[in-house]
């Protein structure tokens, strides 16, 4: 009997933590996937791993108003997003450069690859056809300046993937940071 109660307590704690994660999943360290090359008009990716979280695809919308209290206290006005999944869905290999479009605020780029060039935002390793970049962890931390903190839309731009050799745009994923109470 006691074992059963404690067992249920453990399961309950897990459920609570899982549901808490789900409540902040669209506002804190939002993870997304992005494919390339993608023709104009086609969806490049979306929230969650390839396939999308709950089937959601682009745009990636981060709602700061839904942030949890600990984050608001410890790390206000810094919005993190992350990806582990940049996938070449084409038939030839590419070396890619990344750009944040329409972004005037300071952003920290944090990448774990040894082939990452932080100056040019280029991944200096070829991404093979039908493959993702193995072991990738790429985070962006947007530092929202005071003048944008009362705006309903803090950022309306996206992530662009460019062929580092030719400059050709391969993909674009719209990203928005909003405050919707």
């Amino acid at each position: 009997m006691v074992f059963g109660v404690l067992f249920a307590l453990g399961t309950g704690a897990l459920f609570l933590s899982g549901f808490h994660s789900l409540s902040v999943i669209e506002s804190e360290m939002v993870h997304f996937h992005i494919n390339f090359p993608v023709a104009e008009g086609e969806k490049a990716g979306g929230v969650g791993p390839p396939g999308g979280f709950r089937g959601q695809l682009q745009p990636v919308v981060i709602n700061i108003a839904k942030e949890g209290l600990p984050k608001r206290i410890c790390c206000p006005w810094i919005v993190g997003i992350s990806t582990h999944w940049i996938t070449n869905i084409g038939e030839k290999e590419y070396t890619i450069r990344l750009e944040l479009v329409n972004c005037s605020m300071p952003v920290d780029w944090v990448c774990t690859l040894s082939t990452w060039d932080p100056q040019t935002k280029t991944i200096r390793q070829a991404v093979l056809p039908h493959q993702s970049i193995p072991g990738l962890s790429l985070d962006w931390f947007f530092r929202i300046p005071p003048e944008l903190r009362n705006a309903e839309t803090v950022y309306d731009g996206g992530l662009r993937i460019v062929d580092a050799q030719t400059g050709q745009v391969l993909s674009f994923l719209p990203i928005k940071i909003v405050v919707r109470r």
Partner: protein
Amino acid sequence: MKLSFGKNWKRYMFFLVGIFLFVAPFALVARFAYWAMGSASKPSIHSTCLRMTVEWIFSGRLLWAIIGNPLYVAVIVLPIFAFFFGPLWCGWLCPAGSIPESLSRLTPRKAKIDLSGKMNPAAIRYGYLAGFALFAILGLGFTVCCYWCNFAVMEKIVEDIFLLNFSDLAIWAYSTGIITLVVWLVLLGVLLKGGRGWCNFACPIGAIQSLAHALGSRLSCTFKIVYDKSKCNDCGICIKSCPTWAITRSKNSVTIDRHLCIVCKECVAACHLGGLRYSRK
């Protein structure tokens, strides 16, 4: 507990070894493996992540993951090892367990919460594991695996300390990371007797190894902590020394809960009469 510190000093050396082997900026195991594989990834605790691999067992993705990174086979090797030798990973190497345990030893006894003997943590941990498995099966494993990862939080702190770089935002940019830090390191670590609260209540990797150890310890050919009643004077020092509350008193004797024991051998070191030993019989 401090009584056994000197006699069991090798264990604390292993704690350091665990940090150097698995945690960035060192992560020597992953560093060597990535060098051998020609990978450009950064060696870190993620490269040998045991939480994700437990999730993948239940979501059916483990085989594909091992093909991509053979280090993930550890999630199979460790329970087999625990079956024959006990969960030595938990007791001797795991940095996420050794850091809060070591810090808890520095906390004055009066400041610590003592829940030992008042509940069965193994039941809670198995309940947690069951929920973890269910979430993985439902495709929501990442919400409990990665968002509540004490290994990731631990690594950020260790990395920041060794690199003297405290501007890293990765811990602070999400609520669950902040809560994990407070619960794992402070509430269930520094302020709890033994400092192994997270291990006792919420570690799915530990739960699987403990289950293997509990099964294996029934066989005479396997290694475990063995109690010799003829050498016991009922002083209770072994109970006080156990960081996972695995030893309890029962009728002029002690009982070792194999579901909690991490074969750390603190009790063996603490008992001056040789009433406990790590052996097959």
